[in-house]
């Protein structure tokens, strides 16, 4: 009996507590930097596309919402011909970001992507590709590794030694 009255009183006191509710459209929460929201394709510091069309993201995707077609430019550098994410299927698991070898595909803290028409949730490459580098700054895959695709000459990459002249390699 007494405990009932006590709980009545305690619940009544909640009238004067601070509300937990965030009144969303007017008042927005700050999302953590690692929040897994909208998926973007980023560019490297030289404003070129980071994506090399390796299909790893599409393979990692558990709901098969990523579809792309790789192609090459005149230097032999690979890039996606089209890159399509169906956000009506996407579950925002972030596996594509984990799979990506070049930091091209990234999930950013933004969830406000509701649409009235389901078809509008299919994002094409021009919708996905952003102007900046996303969460990972200063990284350029072609500077780190790979052969000459018009980005750097052989042996000029970061952390890369000059090529060895095998004919002078004497014991």
């Amino acid at each position, binding site marked *: 009996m007494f405990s*009932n009255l006590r*709980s*009545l009183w*305690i*619940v*009544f006191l*909640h*009238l004067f*507590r*601070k*509300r*937990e*509710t965030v*009144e969303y459209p007017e008042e927005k929460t700050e999302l953590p930097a690692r929040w897994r929201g909208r998926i973007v394709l980023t560019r490297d510091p030289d404003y070129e596309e980071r994506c090399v069309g390796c299909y790893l993201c599409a393979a990692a995707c558990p709901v098969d919402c990523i579809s792309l077609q790789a192609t090459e430019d005149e230097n032999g550098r690979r890039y996606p011909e089209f890159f399509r994410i169906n956000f009506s299927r996407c579950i925002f698991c972030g596996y594509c970001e984990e799979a990506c070898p070049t930091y091209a595909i990234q999930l950013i803290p933004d969830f406000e992507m509701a649409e009235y028409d389901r078809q509008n949730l299919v994002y094409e490459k021009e919708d996905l590709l952003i102007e900046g580098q996303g969460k990972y700054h200063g990284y350029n895959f072609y500077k780190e590794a790979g052969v000459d695709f018009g980005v750097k000459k052989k042996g000029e990459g970061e952390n890369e030694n000059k090529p060895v002249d095998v004919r002078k390699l004497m014991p």
Partner: protein
Amino acid sequence: MNEGVLHTLVAFGILVVLLTIAAGLIWLERRLLALWQDRYGPNRVGPFGLFQVMADMIKIFFKEDWIPGFADKKVFVIAPAMLVITILMSFAIVPFTPEIMVVDLNIGILFFLAMSSLGAYSVVLGGWSSNNKYSLLGAIRGAAQMISYEVFMGMSLMGVVIMAGSLNMTDIVIAQKKMWFIIPQFIGFVIFFIGGVAEAHRLPFDIVEAESELIAGYHSEYSGLKFGLFFVGEYLGITLISALITTLFFGGWLGFGFLPPVFWFLLKTFAFIMVFILLRAALPRPRYDQLMSLGWKILLPLSLLNLLVTGAIVLYFQ
């Protein structure tokens, strides 16, 4: 304007106000529950979310009004109407002020008890006619709960009747001019309050509905307007019990001079409605057998004792 027309107008006005209050309570309850759970509750539709009720009404009007094929159709339709009718009938004897009341019956309390007994039929018939085992379980519980709580709810009021020397509600209010009956009849008040919560089958005594056990109990099969009637009936029931507590134990319209009597009445009633909602926010539902044993083993002897002592004291001082 002659007497008859005025009286009809007053009765009609009371009806409109009651239904508005009952509908508004849906909003009030949601807001208050939210506040007690550190939320805001519905605050989007209109100022403070007041039009939420209207939105709900529109929604419920457009819902499919479906009668299950296996139900007993006539009884199924009558049951929700019965609940609302009996409760509205009970309001006839509530004196809001000396002027604003539907009928000044000299058997006022008896009439209320009769009507609330009839209200039990609505629950029982609703559950029975749904032809659904959960509804039937709810109805069985409802029958047991409402009939047994009826007994000592009536008993607890007899103390008030002895002190006022009348069953008439107006006389009872006037008898409280010196002292509200809450003080001499505190036990009676507690028992009546508990019985009232059980009678309105409100939480924590919503054994009849018990969402977690019986889906929605006796009204599982109801939808659309018929469900709406049960819903409004529940809030009317809360209002009725609060109004009666106000009248019988808290001096009805009596108050201090600076406010009109009807305002005092509404103030007290709303305070009790809020207590009802607070009960819902704070207390868990007892088990069915706990409810019954509380009723028969504690409340009934207490109410008899209260009756005995009150009677003895009144006789002694005569």
